[in-house]
């Protein structure tokens, strides 16, 4: 192994340089392992796939990306010979990372969709605010309308197209009005073309990813590591946030030989587990907060349907309780969504920056 390093080295201090490089690569493996062990440890119950947890995942990505960038920089002389296999490896990574950019943009649409749900739940909360007088029929109707729109808005993509064909609003039916607010919200996908598919994008990200052998030299291992991290992060985002043609079918597997494989695969398995749960199978995104809104709003909807006027005290207190639950979810979203979106944007920018720099030094 030392001999093949020497062949690549330009430096005369081959030996010490080799040791430095080895140490550097080793430290990278260690860092990745630490980050994911951490994430795995904080992924119990309600934390997994919450806005906060995904935020931590994105932070970890940024750290790993930084260290990877440093490694590439330190090895630029090795990389710049255009025929070297290292050059091909590294450029391949940066080409791949471009696919991730499209995922980030699609996620932005998903976040916007969640914002609309937030507004609908806001309506429910203010309608049923019983701090003043008791809730009247009008307020109930108002809440009910918002809840129906919310339910439509949160439908899984496949269901919503079926619904669109069946739903016709009454009253003055003009073309633009055949859709309820919920359906309107879905149609405003801006960032990706109609034919774009998140699951296909993930598959493309994962394609031709060859696992390096244990003693592969040079940058094969760090490149594989960084690619896996990138793929995993994008996979999580697609799993959590609504986006066009979501699908988690892409096969993701990391062999045990890598230190970080265990925590990453554990997280992967937990998330797959989550996606198979009965109550989350057809949801439009596995984000914890989405599940909570869905549940709260469904319960509220059922409650409202069961109310006859005049409202009994029992019903009144039930309404109060459900509103409080909804307020909790609403607050969590309100505080967490903007910072989350900024983080995704940061990931986007970092990937771009990293690619640009490295390519400039590669030519």
């Amino acid at each position: 192994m030392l001999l093949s390093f020497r062949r690549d080295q330009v430096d005369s201090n081959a030996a010490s340089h080799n040791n430095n490089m080895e140490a550097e690569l080793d430290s990278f493996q260690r860092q990745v392992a630490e980050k994911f062990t951490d994430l795995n440890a904080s992924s119990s119950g309600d934390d997994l796939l919450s806005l906060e947890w995904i935020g931590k995942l994105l932070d970890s990505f940024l750290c790993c990306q930084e260290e990877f960038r440093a490694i590439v920089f330190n090895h630029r002389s090795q990389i710049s010979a255009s025929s070297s296999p290292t050059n091909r490896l590294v450029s391949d990574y940066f080409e791949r990372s471009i696919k991730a950019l499209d995922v980030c943009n699609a996620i932005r649409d998903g976040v916007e969709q969640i914002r609309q749900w937030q507004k609908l739940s806001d309506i429910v909360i203010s309608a049923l605010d019983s701090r003043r007088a008791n809730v009247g029929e009008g307020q109930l109707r108002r809440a009910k309308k918002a809840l129906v729109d919310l339910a439509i808005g949160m439908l899984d993509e496949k269901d919503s197209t079926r619904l669109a064909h069946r739903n016709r609003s009454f009253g003055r039916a003009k073309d633009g009005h055949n859709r309820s607010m919920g359906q309107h919200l879905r149609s405003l996908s801006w960032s990706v073309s109609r034919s774009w598919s998140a699951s296909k994008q993930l598959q493309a990200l994962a394609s031709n990813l060859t696992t390096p052998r244990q003693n592969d030299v040079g940058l094969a291992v760090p490149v594989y590591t960084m690619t896996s991290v990138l793929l995993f992060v994008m996979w999580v985002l697609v799993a959590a946030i609504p986006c066009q043609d979501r699908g988690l079918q892409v096969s993701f597997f990391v062999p045990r030989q890598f230190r970080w494989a265990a925590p990453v695969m554990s997280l992967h398995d937990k998330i797959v587990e989550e996606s198979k749960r009965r109550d989350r199978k057809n949801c439009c995104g596995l984000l914890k907060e989405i599940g909570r809104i869905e549940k709260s709003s469904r319960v509220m909807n059922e409650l409202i349907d069961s109310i006859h006027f005049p409202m009994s005290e029992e019903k009144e207190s039930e309404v109060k309780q459900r509103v409080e639950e909804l307020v909790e979810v609403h607050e969590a979203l309100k505080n967490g969504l903007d910072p989350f979106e900024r983080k995704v944007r940061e990931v986007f920018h970092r990937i771009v920056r990293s690619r640009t720099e490295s390519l400039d030094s590669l030519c």
Partner: protein
Amino acid sequence: MEKPGDHATESETLPHKSNDLENTNHSHESEHQSHNNDSTEKATPESESESESSQLSLTQVMEAVDDFIQSLSSSTDPLQEIPPAVEPFPETVDSLVSKMESSGLGRDETEDSAFIDAVNRISISVMRLRELNLDSTPVSSWLNRASSVQHHAVSLLDEEFRHLLDRSIENNNKKKNDHDESDNNDEREDAFPDFPPESIATLKKIAGAMISAGYETECCMSYETSRRHAFKEELSGMGYEGIVNNVEDVQRIPWESLQGEIASWISIVRRCSSVLLPGEISLCNAVLPEQDHAKIRKRLLTGFLSTVTIRFLDFSGAVVLTKRSSEKLFKFLDMYETLRELALAVEQSDSDLIHEIKLAQTRLGEAAVTIFGELENSIKTDIGRTPVPSGAVHPLTRYTMNYLKYACEYKDTLDQVFQHYEKAESDQTEPEPENQREDDEEYKTSAFARQMIRVMELLDANLEIKSALYRDPSLRSIFLMNNGRYILQKIKGSTEIRDLMGQAWTRKRSTELRQYHKSYQRETWGKVLQCMNQEGLQVNGKVSKTALKERFKIFNNMFDEIHKTQSTWIVNDEQMQSELRVSIAALVIPAYRSFFGRYKQHIDSGRHTDKYVKYQPEDIESVIDDLFDGNPASMGRKRT
């Protein structure tokens, strides 16, 4: 507390009409008017008796409600029951709602106003009563009915709101089709969104009513949805859907096609910046003009602007990721400038969006710097060993100068870009020693000028090296003259470059040209002139025939040689070519003429004159005219 008696009195003394609700259609009543339309007055005997409140005109009822609301805030005793005049108000409004449902808003302004006033009143009543949180059952029951009706009414308003906002889309499309034949598109250009003032007034009233009713979120959602949809349609109409947005796909498009997409993007974004976005901002300000609604307005606008403009940044971001190459520089700069306009248009938006636009610009700027740097590299690496035949202008000179000339059209933008770059660099490296260029203000202040000069200096150095490839020093001078002249002409030909490079720099180049000229003359013609020197021709006071013959022979050989060689040389610039010839002629012809005139007779021995005297003074000129033509000279004798 309100006295029921008062209302009873009112209902007895005011003239009443039956079927008031139907008549509101035709009445011209507004809040300030109280006269009745004669044709609809129907005073029936029954209506003058008890429970007259149902026969009150809408205005009267609303006045009663106003009084009621007033009393709620002023009285101290908790309200126990609802005044009779006010009692049927919810149902009154409900009938109005049903009527409006079938006829729609936006047809009769008075009608709309009346309706919205009614809705406002019921909203306020509901809100005030809810605040009071009273125990009384009749009050609760009234409140319940009122809140139901309120919801019904505001839902209708919401639907109408969206309908009105959407209608402009249809109008716009209709107008587009109508205008296809007309020449005058300017009016249409500036009318987006295209709402008639009546619609705006109605929208404003509805928005106000919805917000007063506490339905701010619904109002904003409807507005956003409708406007986003309208905007998307407008973009579609401009061909935006055709532009590839996918980062990955953009990388694969060949540059020729991508240029077209970029051009479309530029024209679309510019139209947005100059027409569409200001239009949306105006619309929002018109629909929500109140100072009280400033926060709502800002939130609405910011959200809208972010959503629609971030997409433009996706495309520019994707383009800037493509492989760098020199041909892309100017399109990148065009995009940079387009984004600058966009940033201005969304000034009122929040800082995140503006930050994103600036970031997108920075990316483009960095790419521009890199590409420009490629120019420097391509100069440095142009190290061919073969000199350009005939000393002509080198392709590198042409390429570089044309590139720079084109670049100067963007000098302000490039200046911005390089300033940004220099700042980033100086944060990392130590500052370079300043060049002494006191008389060149432009140099000191313009970052781009500094770059230009660097490139020029590199070019000069490169040409210097290339000139050394010529073994003939005269040809070396001609080469330097050609290239120097080309550079100078390019610079003089453009005000931008000339100002950028500065006076001193231009003067210096002219001086250098003159020096090359002098070198050439010396190298080529020095010896020629020397052989026409009188010294050494006279021996003991008499002209030596041998020496003279020798001199003539030398002259002929030299001259022929120069003719043969230098005719194949090229001087590209016509004016310089003529100047050269003129200067050579001015140098050689008088000298030869005087030499010829003085000494020809001494070898006029009839038969062999021709052997020595090959050229008449007139012939010299025609030979000189052959020089620097780039054509091999016909060496045959020219006879005038």
